[in-house]
């Protein structure tokens, strides 16, 4: 699949980058951004009238003095200096501007005025020459595959994720960077991050369409506090969702609680039920916190959607099987799916293969004395069950006869089997290492039973939505 050219390409795949406000001072944003961007393939031009040289690179006194075309200009400048810089970008024919500064519309009327001024300057350029403007008040972009990065928080303090399939569009940069850091720590990777900031020009809808067409992106997640154009957003989602899952964390839910309430409909729309309904109508997943946002992304990015709703639990600990069963089946405190009864043949096989005190019914409990082989044998039996869609592998490392090879067994079935598989393991270092390995091999794996069950629920929902959609 080839990327169709877009005028946003200069934001995510620039060949030449100018950093305005590049600095020799390591504590300055203009230094960090320049230093991080050096890792990319892009050709870099630090711009600073008084710096001379930065990290061995000759500084240019102005954007105009750069002898080449500039794809992307990163503005590491104060808000007040921004209009002039944008004017220079227009004159230079820059394709995309990333404006990192705060102090615009989010702070009050003076900031709003600055934004209006910038809009006018951009509008003064011929449409086909007009730079695209990201921000202001944004951490900009991060493209792990190309090491394109304008995030100006310390990499040492906030390690970044590696290259993967999840694109993250966020209205809050700092929040997204923290979420990505936490995700990276457990092995979740990203195709791109983009902070939309004050959405002066580039907004979430356009980026959604961009990542829909991006061959490196397979799942799109968003953190939003407001919709710039809700209708257009839903239209885009409807087009995209059959191909790539979209998951939205829409915060600021209580804001509308103060809405007028002359009639029932208005009063009931209060706690953002319209958002709820509209997202469901467009088959967009809604997450309610940062953990769910990434959890669902991991499940939907790699996991196998299913329609039947018949689930088996394979556990090394009886109690965990019971907890998982409750969460799977409960409508109020769970995902409302069904534990599948196993076939007579399957149960006979399990009885012959497992330890005498193991359970050959669903939940299948191989017991805490089981070996890798027992677990593998049980998984194989479940994989050949005719009336089964998904398997929740509850995996603990208590038995002296299991070790990390269990991971390979499950990963192998995940890729070559026909059932949807999700893994949970609760515990310390060993569990966490196992989960990270699984995650890096693409298996949805979670450190709690509930999070695993929720992932199963999401894969089922996606399956049902997809099949209803194809029937329409």
């Amino acid at each position, binding site marked *: 699949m080839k990327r169709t050219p877009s005028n946003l390409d200069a934001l995510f795949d620039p060949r030449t980058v100018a950093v305005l406000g590049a600095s020799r001072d390591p504590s300055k944003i203009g230094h960090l951004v320049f230093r991080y961007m050096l890792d990319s393939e892009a050709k870099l031009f630090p711009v600073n009238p008084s710096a001379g040289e930065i990290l061995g690179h000759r500084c240019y006194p102005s954007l105009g003095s750069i002898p080449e075309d500039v794809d992307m200009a990163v503005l590491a400048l104060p808000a007040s200096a921004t209009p002039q810089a944008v004017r220079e970008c227009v004159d230079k024919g820059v394709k995309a501007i990333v404006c990192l500064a705060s102090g615009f519309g989010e702070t009050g009327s003076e900031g709003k005025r600055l934004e209006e001024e910038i809009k006018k300057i951009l509008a003064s350029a011929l449409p086909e020459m007009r730079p695209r403007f990201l921000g202001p008040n944004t951490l900009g972009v991060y493209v792990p595959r190309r090491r394109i990065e304008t995030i100006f928080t310390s990499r040492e303090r906030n390690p970044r994720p590696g290259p993967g399939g999840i694109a993250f569009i966020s209205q809050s940069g700092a929040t997204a960077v923290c979420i990505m850091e936490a995700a990276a720590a457990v092995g979740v990777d990203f195709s791109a991050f983009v902070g939309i900031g004050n959405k002066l020009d580039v907004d979430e809808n356009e980026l959604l369409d961009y990542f829909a067409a991006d061959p490196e992106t397979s799942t799109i997640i968003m953190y939003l506090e*407001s*919709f710039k154009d*809700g*209708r257009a957003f*839903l239209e885009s989602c409807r087009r995209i969702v059959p191909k790539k899952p979209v998951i939205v964390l829409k915060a600021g839910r209580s804001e*509308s609680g*103060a*809405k*007028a*309430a*002359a*009639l*029932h*409909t*208005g*009063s*009931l*729309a209060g706690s953002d*039920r*319209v*958002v*709820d*309904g*509209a997202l*469901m*109508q467009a088959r967009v997943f809604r997450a309610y916190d940062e953990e769910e946002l990434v959890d669902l992304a991991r499940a939907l990015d790699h996991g196998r959607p299913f329609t039947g709703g018949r689930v088996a639990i394979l556990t090394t600990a009886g109690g965990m099987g019971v907890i998982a069963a409750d969460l799977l089946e409960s409508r109020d405190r769970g995902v409302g799916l069904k534990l599948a009864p196993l076939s007579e043949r399957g149960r006979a096989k399990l009885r012959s293969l497992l330890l005498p005190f193991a359970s050959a019914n669903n939940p299948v409990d191989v017991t805490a004395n089981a070996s890798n082989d027992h677990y593998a044998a049980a998984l194989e039996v479940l994989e050949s069950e005719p009336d089964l869609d998904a398997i929740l592998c509850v995996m603990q490392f208590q038995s002296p006869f299991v070790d990390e090879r269990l991971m390979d067994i499950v990963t192998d079935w995940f890729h070559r089997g026909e059932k949807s598989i999700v893994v949970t393991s609760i515990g310390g270092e060993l569990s966490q290492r196992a989960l990270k390995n699984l995650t890096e091999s693409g298996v949805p794996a979670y450190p709690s039973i509930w999070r695993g069950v929720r992932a199963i629920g999401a894969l089922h929902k996606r399956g049902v939505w997809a099949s*209803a959609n194809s029937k*329409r």
Partner: protein
Amino acid sequence: MKAKDLLLSCMPLAEHQVKELVQSYGVPVPRYLVLEDGGLPRRLPFPYPVVVKISDPQILHKSEVGGVRLDIKNRAQLERAVSRMRQDFPGKAVLIEVQEPLGVEAIVGLIYDSAFGPSIMLGMGGILTEVYQDTTFRTVPIDESDAYEMISLLRGVRLFEGFRNIRASKSALVSAMLAVSRLGEELGEHIAQTDLNPVIVYEDRCVAVDAKLLLRKRGSTEQA
């Protein structure tokens, strides 16, 4: 925004105007008669029992002010009820309509949402609507499968599925929802909020027995 400000900014319609409007889109309403300032006709064009209501843009919540008389069984009671209304609400239109039997009560509404534009609501209706808050929203237009999905998402869905031998037709409700959706699609930009509550659902039909509508102020970008 306070309810009062909302009323000042959004013009309400009288109940009979709303009913005429939703009926023209295909929402069934009870057979009715409007008395502007004239007297009662010699014969009602529909059978007793009937309901007498005040129908005026200024009186949104009629029962709270004694603007509704139920269970009127004959001519004498009707004459008394109408003359009381005339006394209590001089100069206002009076609505006389067939009193529909009890049934499963739903609410179907429209709202202009600031982010998503005209949106439709379905919920379990009646006087406990806001107590149970059993509702779901969609942007308009909706299609038939959206409408069925909305019903399936209500906690009260069992009332449409034969619970205790109650018979309430999903398809009748769906066709009313689709009618409201068409209204929202065509005129939603002008409507701040609409409540059809209750829409009483029976075995083979449904009927909107009360209807309220607030117009959006012209040029308003505010959410209702």
